[in-house]
């Protein structure tokens, strides 16, 4: 493997990992943007999506659709997983976050943390403590791209992640609801004075953010081959870091943050002692926040309050 192929391969690795982080980070950023709450349970929503994905996919495989209707199968798997988690997200918002909308930050944070523990253990009790294997519908074949190996699933996943991100950007900037969401995020009181039903907008945020997380969950399952009740945690920490690095509340920021965190991880593991990979990720995060406290693409504190 020559050096250029090596670099190219690592770039592909980084892009792939970064896209997953970005997709999860979007959920954090959207929820944070609108109610200024770190949704600690987001990692569990992501895991729930992965579980529904494997349930649906196994079912469809059994009736033979994977062979006969491959594209439709994927469509159904992603659709159902995202729909399920959207419902779960709405329920979560209604039960655990809405009553605390005006309470102190800490109470809301702990409520979210409580839900995270609840969901994670609930999934452990229902889905078992061990890995659940994802049917390998994409196989192990890879495309040789100038010496770098890109698997079929990676191509599909990167494309889908890109489509989802563009779709979200379109929704938030071009549709009436999306604009109402941004307005609510910027100034809830004024948004209400303009007739925006903020309960509804917050509900929609809690559908879209977690649904994107669910999509990421299915992607992780499809590529890495397994899902387990506690897999959300490590993705949560990284995606959370990505969202803050990019400037929490900012959608392009979350994408950028995800790609950067993925990039740092891969680059460090590729060239330097891999044991210190996570130390580096967190150090970079702290340095960035120290130098630019609002994150890379975030607006400054004063601006956010207007």
């Amino acid at each position, binding site marked *: *493997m020559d050096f250029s192929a*090596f670099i190219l*391969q*690592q770039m592909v*690795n*980084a892009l*792939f*990992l970064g896209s997953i982080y970005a997709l999860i980070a979007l959920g954090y950023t959207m929820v944070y943007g609108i109610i200024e709450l770190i949704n600690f349970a987001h990692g569990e929503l992501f895991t729930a999506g992965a579980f529904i994905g494997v349930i649906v996919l196994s079912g469809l495989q059994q009736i033979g659709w994977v062979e006969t209707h491959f594209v439709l199968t994927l469509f159904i798997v992603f659709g159902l997983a995202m729909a399920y988690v959207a419902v779960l997200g709405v329920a979560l918002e209604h039960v655990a976050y809405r009553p605390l909308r005006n309470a102190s930050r800490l109470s809301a944070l702990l409520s979210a943390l409580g839900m995270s523990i609840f969901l994670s*253990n609930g999934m*452990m009790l229902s889905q*078992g*403590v*061990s*890995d659940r*294997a*994802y049917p*390998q519908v994409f196989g*192990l074949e*890879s495309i040789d791209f100038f010496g770098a*190996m890109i*698997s079929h699933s*990676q191509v599909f996943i990167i494309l889908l992640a890109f489509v989802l991100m563009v779709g979200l950007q379109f929704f938030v900037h071009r549709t009436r609801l999306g604009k109402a969401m941004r307005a609510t995020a910027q100034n809830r009181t004024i948004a209400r004075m303009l007739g925006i039903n903020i309960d509804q907008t917050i509900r929609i945020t809690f559908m879209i953010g977690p649904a994107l997380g669910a999509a990421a969950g299915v992607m*992780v399952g499809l590529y*890495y*081959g*397994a899902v*387990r009740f*506690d*897999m959300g*945690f*490590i*993705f949560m920490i990284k995606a959370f870091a990505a969202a803050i690095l990019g400037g929490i509340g900012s959608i392009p920021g979350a994408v950028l943050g995800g790609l950067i965190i993925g990039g740092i*991880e*891969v*680059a*460090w*593991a*590729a*060239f330097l*002692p*891999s*044991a210190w*990979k*996570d130390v580096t990720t967190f150090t970079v995060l702290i340095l960035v926040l120290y130098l630019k406290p609002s994150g890379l693409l975030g607006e400054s504190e004063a601006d956010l309050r207007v």
Partner: protein
Amino acid sequence: MKKLALLTLSLVLALGIGTAAGKELKIGTLSPLTGPYAQDGTDIKQGVITAVDAFSPVKGFDNVEVLPGDSACDGGKATMAANKLINSGVDVVVGAYCSSATEPAQIPLMDAGVVQITPGSTAERLTHKGYDHFFRMPPRDDVQAWSTVEFLTKKQGVKTIALIDDKQTYTAGLTENIRKFAEDNGNLEIVAHEHITPGDSDFTAVLTKLKRISPDVIYMAVYQPEGSKMIQQARKLDVDATFMTEDAVFHPKFLEVAGSAAEGVYLTFAKAPETPERKAFEEMYKKKWNVDSIGSYAYYAYDAAMVALKAAEKCGCTDAETLSKTIRGTTWEGVSGEIKFDEKGDRELAHIIWVVKDNQFVPYWDPITGKDL
């Protein structure tokens, strides 16, 4: 102060003993029933319960009770759980799983005079502390490392190896031992030593790095969840090396998750004797717990409980002194092979090399005899 402490101690002991009497045998388990290793922890608990079911009633005892404890792989929780078991008057504890839980739990258990048999902890020093009542079912890290290096140099004849571990007590101890044996051996060069984070899913960066170095063998000292993901990614990246791993990956889940990617992976694990007892245990276990496959630690846990029960039956006793002597002085026929403990409490058991073939673990080579299986 000393007097006061002694007074309190004697009072507490008096209270404790009050509950421990009666012709009852109590077996405690210590294993992670919550947290990331809950799968193996549950296997251990179920293995012990299966053994008690299989061998009850035990002659000379009215009743055998199993008390499951959750060590959560955490030192503080493990000592609390151990103390709880001691207070319930356990005679034998099967556990713990993580060395980081076994080590702190050893102190109160040994102090209280309880026989401890670990079904999972392989750190060498656990049996090197001079405890008389401590036994270990699986082979030690150094035994496993020795088998691995033997296999790679004698059977495979490879020259270079890259190590990956996830920096846990077990895995780091294992790679350290492999390094030692490889250096002693002189024919096996360690060309890279990488680390991953437990719980991570993406190992492509490290695997790509190793692909470039292109060692003959990549040794994965990780647990099953990481192992199954890593091998899949390695196949997708088209890494051209032999993959070898250890007993923590030797789990049916590995085959299920990794699927065709697992083909050709070598593993070290104890010999599986083709005995009727083992067959009977497997059938019973599958039926009782409604599962299709059995986790590897269930075998060790079953054997640990079996040894405890049979020893108690044989000596008709529950005190640690006599019980330990009985356990040590007898050769037992277990589902994980013959069980004979040396004076330190270790089994004279070596790993054999297994290979994944047609999505099955198949015995491949025996490092002691140097013969194919």
